[in-house]
């Protein structure tokens, strides 16, 4: 009896391993209802862009942008045909202090009235390890565009019912030097490195 049980457990284990190996994803797993290629509109309410910068050389300061929009295309059969475009409005900067927000929007920093948006537009997408994608693109800040490479972590996707529809999302973290984009005023007050934490959720069109 024990040997039959052991055999059954062994067989089941082998079966599970075989199933796991055969369905191991190379890239994002296709959820039920997914097409070969899906275009998603970014849901600004459930997407976040948070920035971190060194203040006075003694601490890390965090702020956020509340207006995020754009779209992304996930092509499962041809991942290199996937695309991402993210647009963030400077005027939505939020650091929990109105006067500081006004100063950040002035020509001293973000110059929000002269350059209303930060944009990232992909130029190539390469599948990486597991659910990651290496995305090369163009990052535009203060009217200056520079190449930027980021690693996107695909979180998941699926049909979330009538209220939310079919959804997918990813996140990424990357660091830029603000002086590369002409935002180099008072480097003794604020660090040059700015880290951006981006969490995106989109609804399939």
């Amino acid at each position, binding site marked *: 009896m024990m040997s039959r049980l052991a055999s059954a457990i062994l067989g089941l284990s082998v079966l599970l391993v075989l199933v796991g190996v055969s369905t191991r994803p190379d890239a994002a797993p296709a959820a039920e209802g997914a097409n070969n290629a899906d275009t998603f509109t970014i849901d600004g309410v459930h997407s976040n862009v948070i920035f971190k910068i060194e203040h006075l050389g003694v601490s890390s300061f965090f702020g956020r942008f509340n207006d995020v929009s754009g779209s992304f295309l996930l092509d499962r059969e041809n991942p290199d045909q996937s695309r991402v475009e993210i647009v963030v409005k400077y005027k939505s900067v939020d650091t929990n*202090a*109105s*006067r*500081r927000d*006004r*100063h950040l*929007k*002035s*020509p*001293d920093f973000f*110059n929000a*009235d*002269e*350059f*209303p948006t930060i944009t990232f537009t992909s130029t190539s997408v390469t599948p990486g390890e597991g659910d990651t994608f290496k995305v090369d693109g163009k990052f535009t800040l*203060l*009217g*200056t565009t520079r190449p930027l490479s980021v690693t996107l972590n695909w979180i998941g996707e699926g049909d979330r019912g009538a209220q939310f529809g079919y959804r997918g999302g990813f996140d990424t973290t990357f660091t830029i030097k603000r002086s590369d984009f*002409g935002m*180099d*005023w008072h*480097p003794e007050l604020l660090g040059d490195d700015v880290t951006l934490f981006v969490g995106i959720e989109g609804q399939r069109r």
Partner: protein
Amino acid sequence: MPGLVGLVIVLGSGRVFRAGIASEWAPTVGLCAGAGGGFVLVLGKWPTFPPIQSSEWIVYLTALALGGGVVESARLIPDGVRWASRTLVCALVVGVVSRRLFVNAGIDPATIKILWAMAPGVVVIAIASWRAQERLAREGTGALPALVLLIALAGLAVVLTLVGSLKLGQFAGSVASAMGGVLAGWWIGRRVKPGPGPIAAGWVLLLAILLTGYAYVQGLSPILAGLVLVCPPAAWIGQVVRHRRTGMALAVVCSLLPIVAAVLIAWERSHDLDADDPYAGVQRIADDTRA
């Protein structure tokens, strides 16, 4: 530094050249060199050409101000040429500052129409205010015109700092400092008088900074911009109605009135935000701990 540059150029030119000849160009060069050097110090770098941000264009507009000032101070130039120069300079300043507004408007026809309708009006206002400053420069006695411009620039520096742009406030402060150096050079040397040239150059720079602030600093309202622009006409009125006892004191007081009003309004608005906004000043953690 800007004041020192203006002072050295005015004093130095008075020793090297004849006073009459030096007076035609030295104060203008001193003002523009001092102001331009101040702009570069504020930015911490020489901006690449062509600049991307309008605030960086102001460094290059210093050359335009220099040209406009030299034309104004040259004796043998006909009035028609002077007016053409003023119109061109004002149009260029408005165009450089507002070009980004047209780009941002994109293909929105309604916004483009509004911008094209407003631009000539802004140029006319700029020329009219220049004319008021120029009349004061030609009819005013002694250092009054330069002093009025100094008051307007210093007031603009304070207003811009209060409404949210320390950078542009420092720009205006640099021009004010350079004008102070030019005035000090004349007062010390008594040879090279600041005539219409540095007044015109300083006014061009004031317009460039004011228009940049008006276009891209949210807190600089039409009222605040208008109060700064009305400073020379107010001084001119004070000079017209002056009594022999008051001399130029009445004109100076009249020029101060709109600037004081602008500073008070800007101060009020700068404190009009969240009452508990911690960005207003340094938080005293120690005091809180002791309490």
